[in-house]
């Protein structure tokens, strides 16, 4: 019958996680030809400011997050976690909890050994959260403490306890490149060299909605799992295992979720535990981590220890670098982007290592592995620029040939007023009531792969009555995927965004990838576009005879279908839909590589004010310039860029995971003491989309936005007061110590 022709294939670049760091790889996909986004200026909705379609739901409290789902008979789960960083469990006695009125299920999760504070031991489900809290307190766990290492200093001391038996000195070599002797020799030829040790502690995602799920299971052979996750389709498999059920019997729902930032994939600990409790009680269970538990057991951005030597020539060229990088990811293997990051250094020796401690495993966090490396590299850049007496922007331009960076540096410099900065570090005017304030500026740059993956299956439905819906199982983390999904369909059909109903966040809808590595937009948007084009084709085919033309002669705009060559020959959208059969149209779209791109940059600059008496740093202004191919929704891109810069500000000045070496415990697992940036910390912020990027593809940009902010602030502090702070966050004590050492 029909010839079974093998589809034409083409090679495309995409991004896969290699050791937690997104890496570009080449894969083969069907070559479909297909639609294009069209040039800049050709859009009516896309590349404009689009109102978030779920804005009203979020602003009125109607949006239901996992934490908000409550069904009749639902129980409240609570986890008991280890208070010790390393201990053997000798007994777990849950009898009191089991006997407690209102307690419906108790499970022991671990009766052998705990390896970090926060390691789950037991859990309960009860009819009220208050009773569940009481019940976990009655569980008696006998521990035999073992020696722990919770800081890198503890882990590298002679005779330190081994966190893993197969890594006796707690160090695992992960990779590297270059010849150390050659790099050292090349350094000798440099006109200026700098040697630094950079230390960064763990940062926490601090998602406002803690990790958790609501398992709606009442004993039958089906279950619905509401999950606060970045991957709707990561849930059913995990839940099926935990509930002992077939995957297809499980529906995962992620209508709204309160922040993930890389920490929410799979059903995770709370999900596994909730499933066990639910199964045992034959009742729905909602289990959300408490705020302290969220700090202890929901991951972190791995810390970093980086020893760097670098040199430059008088004429502004980087010459050589020797870099030892250790990621401090607790029990996990974190990751760090390799130095020299985005700049060209001819002779490099670089090594990557993981250094283990008895702390919760690190997880991906917005731009995983990049902000740490950026901080080291950009600090080195300004140190060297100062030594050879060159402007930091010019020095950067001299060491990268990428036109994006050159353009973005110029744009940001103009916006922040770069010419106002002190020409030498600490060389500016002292002002203020006590003559203690000094200002300075700094910059940093980022890189990210992003790219799309060929997983999404998007359906567009058009009904006879003119209603139109787009459906895909993807999730919206707050990035605005729901909104651009509606907008892409609306633009294609010539309708207002509000005319399109968007159904997302359900594993019974079409397949979609998890939101990691800024791949959502480049994976989802192309499939939405293709689905919309396909639906439009079907609608044109049905409606064209009514206008006496061929389908390809039609266009859609302003709520009408019309003959392209003769716009007076037209029909309203509703009239066109009335030509459809009773079943309406259902059209599927899959990913098209033509519509997705990868590789973004990003430059950020900061102006700060340093109080040289108190060591306090205040950020006065931040400017971000970001490329992302075609910006589907400019307002949402600006929101993301603002958010990235603000998280960078927190990383630079405020956020610090304190752990006590003696007890092995985190000292600040609360929002009172783990400082997130607040309203009073906000500088003037300018978020600019780099319109010099005219690529007709979409590329995710959420991760690069969170990379260079801390680097820019650290360099601004250096520029203001001449003190190089080599550790984040830049707290007043570090500033005063550095100023003192300098004096």
């Amino acid at each position, binding site marked *: 019958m029909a010839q079974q022709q093998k589809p034409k294939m083409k090679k495309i670049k995409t991004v896969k996680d290699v050791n937690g760091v997104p890496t570009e790889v080449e894969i083969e996909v069907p070559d479909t030809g297909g639609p294009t986004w069209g040039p800049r200026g050709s859009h009516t909705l896309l590349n404009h400011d689009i109102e978030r379609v779920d804005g009203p739901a979020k*602003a009125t409290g109607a949006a239901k997050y996992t934490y908000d789902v409550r069904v009749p008979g639902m129980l409240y789960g609570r986890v008991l976690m280890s208070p010790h960083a390393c201990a053997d469990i000798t007994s777990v006695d849950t009898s009191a909890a089991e*006997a407690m*009125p209102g307690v419906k299920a108790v499970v022991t999760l671990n009766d052998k050994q705990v390896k970090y504070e926060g390691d789950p031991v037991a859990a309960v489900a009860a009819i009220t959260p208050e009773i569940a809290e009481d019940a976990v307190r009655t569980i008696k766990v006998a521990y035999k403490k073992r020696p722990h290492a919770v800081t890198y200093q503890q882990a590298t001391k002679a005779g330190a306890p081994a966190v893993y038996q197969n890594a006796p000195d707690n160090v695992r070599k992960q990779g590297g490149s270059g010849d150390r002797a050659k790099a050292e020799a090349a350094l000798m030829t440099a006109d200026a060299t700098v040697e630094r040790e950079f230390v960064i502690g763990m940062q926490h995602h*601090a998602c406002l909605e803690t990790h958790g799920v609501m398992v709606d299971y009442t004993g039958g052979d089906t279950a619905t799992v509401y999950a606060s996750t970045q991957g709707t389709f990561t849930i059913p498999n995990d839940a099926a295992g935990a509930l002992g059920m077939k995957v297809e019997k499980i529906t995962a729902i992620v209508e709204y979720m309160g922040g993930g930032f890389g920490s929410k994939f799979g059903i995770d600990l709370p999900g596994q535990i909730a499933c066990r409790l639910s199964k045992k009680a034959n009742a729905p269970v909602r289990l959300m981590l408490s705020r302290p538990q969220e700090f202890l057991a929901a991951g972190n951005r791995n810390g970093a220890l980086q020893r760097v030597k670098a040199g430059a020539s008088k004429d502004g060229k980087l010459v050589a670098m020797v870099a030892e990088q250790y990621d401090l990811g607790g029990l996990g293997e974190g990751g760090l982007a390799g130095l020299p990051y985005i700049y060209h250094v001819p002779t490099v020796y670089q090594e990557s290592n993981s250094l283990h401690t008895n702390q919760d495993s690190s997880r991906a966090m917005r731009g995983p592995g990049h902000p740490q490396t950026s901080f080291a590299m950009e600090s080195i850049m300004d140190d060297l620029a100062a030594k050879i007496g060159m402007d930091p922007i010019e020095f950067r331009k001299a060491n990268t040939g990428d036109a994006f960076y050159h353009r973005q540096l110029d744009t940001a410099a103009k916006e922040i007023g770069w010419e106002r900065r002190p020409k030498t570090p600490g060389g500016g005017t002292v002002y203020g009531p006590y003559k203690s304030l000094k200002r300075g500026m700094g910059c940093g740059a980022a890189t990210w792969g992003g790219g799309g993956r060929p997983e999404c299956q998007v359906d567009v439905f058009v009904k006879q009555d003119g209603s139109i819906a787009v459906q895909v199982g993807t999730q919206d983390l707050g990035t605005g995927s729901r909104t651009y999904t509606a907008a892409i369909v609306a633009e294609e059909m010539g309708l207002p965004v509000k005319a399109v109903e968007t159904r997302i966040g359900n594993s019974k809808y079409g397949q979609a990838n998890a939101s990691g590595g800024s791949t959502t937009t480049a994976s989802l948007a192309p499939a939405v576009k293709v689905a919309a084009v396909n639906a439009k084709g079907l609608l044109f085919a049905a409606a064209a005879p009514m206008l006496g033309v061929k389908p390809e002669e039609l266009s859609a705009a302003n709520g009408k279908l019309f003959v392209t060559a003769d716009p007076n020959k037209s029909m309203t959208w509703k009239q066109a839909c009335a030509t459809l059969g009773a079943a309406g149209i259902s059209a599927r779209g899959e990913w098209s590589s033509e519509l997705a791109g990868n590789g973004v940059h990003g430059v950020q600059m900061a102006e700060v004010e340093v109080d040289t008496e108190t060591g306090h740093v205040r950020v006065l202004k931040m400017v971000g310039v970001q490329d992302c191919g075609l910006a589907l929704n400019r307002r949402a891109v600006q929101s993301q860029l603002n958010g990235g810069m603000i998280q960078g500000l927190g990383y630079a000045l405020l956020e610090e995971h304190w752990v006590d070496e003696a007890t092995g415990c985190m000292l600040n697992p*609360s929002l009172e003491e783990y400082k997130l940036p*607040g309203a009073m910390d906000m500088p003037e912020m300018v978020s600019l989309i780099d319109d010099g990027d005219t690529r007709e593809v979409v590329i995710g940009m959420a991760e690069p936005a969170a990379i260079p902010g801390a680097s820019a602030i650290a360099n601004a502090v250096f520029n203001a007061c001449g003190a190089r702070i080599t550790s984040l966050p830049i707290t007043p004590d570090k500033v005063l110590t550095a100023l003192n050492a300098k004096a």
Partner: protein
Amino acid sequence: MADKRDEQGADPGLSRRQFLRGVGVVGAGAGLADELLGGEKAEAAPLSQAPAGAILKPGMQKVTLNVNGADTTMEVEPRTTLLNALRNHADPPITGPKLICDQGACGGCTVLLDGKTMYGCMLLAVDAVGRKVTTVEGLARDGKMSPVQEAFVEKDAMMCGFCTPGFIMSVESLLQTNKNPSLEQIKAACSGNVCRCGTYPHIFEAAMAAAAKMRGGA
């Protein structure tokens, strides 16, 4: 735990049995669960009718709260916070106020109590009896969002949206007393709220826009 509370002076007139029932104490026996859930429910004293200064006993209490203009009756323990009462005990649940830090550090649970901002996690439900509680669900009039809510949508003053109800309540409260706030005053009014996505600049814009809208008599 239970012993400690005993020492700390539970009402001496309170029977051991009622006490146990109240705190769900260790080893009290499974039979008590039934009482907690069923039989003795009717005994719970309606708090809204309790005389002023009445000593509250542990265990489920019937309370009537005035939320968004309507009385709603539910059973809570004396230790239940207003936030948890709204979210976990009211029927239907009122989930606009979010539980985020549970210690008055983030503002996610901000409500208006007799018109003034209050953290829902820092007030016991029983202490809200007889007062007017307004949550983000209670701001719309005849299905139309308040000017503050509208401005939050227009200015994209939200990303994940989890902190949004709390910020909206703080801005509502500010604009009730200050029709023309400066940027610094807006920041101060929002300083008890935390956003992790980093929406602040757009929240400030939204507050400015809402103030202008309200001054214009919209």
